């Protein structure tokens, strides 16, 4: 079984996110890191391998991004992937979700994975949709928000998944190959060992351009994207909270209860 894990380099969680007014895109300068949601996808792949229900021959981390994205791949490899694939091309800059999904799908076709895993969202764009777009291009079933995954050896190999939905939990059976986006409740990702960090650069990394995976230039990048950011606004500033001084505890409790009641919170 071959598992491909889609990963992404995103601004580090500690960096204040902002839109660059000149491009209308997120400013990705500053410290970057592997998308934290993707670490759950890598861990899920590792747990399938270690679970032993099926033989996992290879775990491959796949990303699309600029040259700096190599660092995210190194981290993915330090967390357990055997090798990585880096799709990078100036023509890809400015791709929207549909264009990115198409480009990633073309890259994945070259790998012929049995299972594609990814985090439920990226910590920057937070679209939650790339898995479904990729699945559509690959003509594979897609599940999102998966928080538990058990492998049933085949043939055909199947996954029994639990999805987290607003109304509760779905238990879903899906036949591989499939594209699964996992929620962060699925596992607790391991921390990379020092040796894995130092060995990450020695693991194979395929650097690909759009021509290597038959990506049509007019379907990617800014010109190939149909979603255009027309305007952007910073979120409204939060209003100051109301401070109730605790002079008389009984009175304070009454005030808090009244405040909550007024807002129909109790």
């Amino acid at each position: 079984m071959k598992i491909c894990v889609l990963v992404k380099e995103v601004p580090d969680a500690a960096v204040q996110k902002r839109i660059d007014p000149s491009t209308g895109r997120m400013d990705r300068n500053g410290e970057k890191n592997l998308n934290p949601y993707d670490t759950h996808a890598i861990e899920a792949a590792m747990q399938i391998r270690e679970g032993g229900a099926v033989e996992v021959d290879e775990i491959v981390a796949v990303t699309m991004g600029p040259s700096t994205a190599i660092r995210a791949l190194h981290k993915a490899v330090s967390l357990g992937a055997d090798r990585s694939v880096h799709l990078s091309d100036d023509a890809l800059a400015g791709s929207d979700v549909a264009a990115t999904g198409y480009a990633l799908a073309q890259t994945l076709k070259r790998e012929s994975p049995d299972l594609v895993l990814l985090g439920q969202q990226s910590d920057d764009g937070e679209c939650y949709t790339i898995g479904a777009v990729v699945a559509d291009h690959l003509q594979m079933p897609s599940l999102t928000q998966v928080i538990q995954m058990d492998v049933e050896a085949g043939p055909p190999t199947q996954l029994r998944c639990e999805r987290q939905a607003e109304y509760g939990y779905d238990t879903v059976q899906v036949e591989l190959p499939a594209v699964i986006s996992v929620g962060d409740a699925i596992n607790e990702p391991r921390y990379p060992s020092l040796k894995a960090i130092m060995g990450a650069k020695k693991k194979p990394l395929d650097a690909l351009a759009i021509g290597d995976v038959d990506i049509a230039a007019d379907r990617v990048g800014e010109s190939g994207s149909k979603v255009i950011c027309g305007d952007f606004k910073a979120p409204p500033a939060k209003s100051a909270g109301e401070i109730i001084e605790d002079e008389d505890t009984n009175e304070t409790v009454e005030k808090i209860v009244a405040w909550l009641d007024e807002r129909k919170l109790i």
Partner: protein
Amino acid sequence: MDFELTDDQKSIQRAVAELAGTFDDEYWAERDEKHEFPWDFYKAFADAGWIGITTPEEFGGTGLGILEASLLLEEVAASGAGMNGASSMHLSIFGMHPVIKHGSDELKQSTLPRIVDGSLHVCFGVTEPNAGLDTTRITTYAKRNGGGDYVVNGRKVWISKALESEKVLLLTRTTKLEDVDKKTDGMTLFLTDLDRDKVDIRPIPKMGRKAVDSNELFIDGLEVPEEHRVGEEGKGFKYILDGLNPERILVAVEALGLGRAALRRAVAYGNERVVFGRQIGANQGIQFPLADALARLDAATLMVRKAAWLYDQGLPCAREANMAKYLCADAGFQAADRAVQVHGGMGYASEYHVERYFREARLTRIAPISQEMILNYLGEHVLGLPRSY
């Protein structure tokens, strides 16, 4: 000139920060208060291979330099783990250097892989009640027992982590001071079992870093096989000297890390605490000392990076290592002191953690060498002034 860390070094910083970040300030406050060694923290770092960061690969380590080790310990301290976290692993990170360099193959094979996997704890037995920095005056004596083996008697003090340690790296005299031509001759180093029947270990009540014990050792008839001797008899002092500069560098970064942890908390409090209708951080009386602390921490960082780089290049670094320890200890302590001040009365409360940082930062101005002794070194050996002590 390139001031940038490599990608690998940045990855080390980030990975250590992430792992250390899973142990929060409450964890450290509790370990400190209960005087409990941070076993689960230590295990997490040992399991991920961090303890063997400088140990050669042939013994299971990663064989990296002091610069990488300093990044590790700085991030550990900066996470809020402070000296409790750093001291739990400090000696395993570089304390075995004399054994790596001068120990027999058998001694190395039997101990270093266990240092790397975290199962072997070793304490460092050098200082004595009447011989602190004046190491040549130690009186703990190893006498041949007629065969090749030795029997050791004496007393050691300020021995960290002895309660948890299975072995001790023990410096003894094998020729008395009055019988040697050079006072640095006649000392012998052993890596031997800390036999509780022959060594009484008494913890010293102290100001801070209470999760990692500091002890007095009363050694009475400790039998030490000849094969536990590190290198040649009589050359122990020289072997210990090799590790002094790295030790200064590592304590320097621990002080830096503590300073950064304190500054982080002080800035957060300055932004959050509102008095007289505005954030206290808006007052220059609060803001300037913190900005000044930042500048001093950053400047000290440059010195310690240079010292570590020189050491890893095999170049002389005593001047820089001493300056780094001096500057980092002062910068770290000052940052911690100001963090307490910014917190006002709350800075004195354990709940805000800065008093713990303050207590620990004070240590770095004393150990492993006092600020004054560093000035003595710089005055005499760098400036060429007469010896002042």
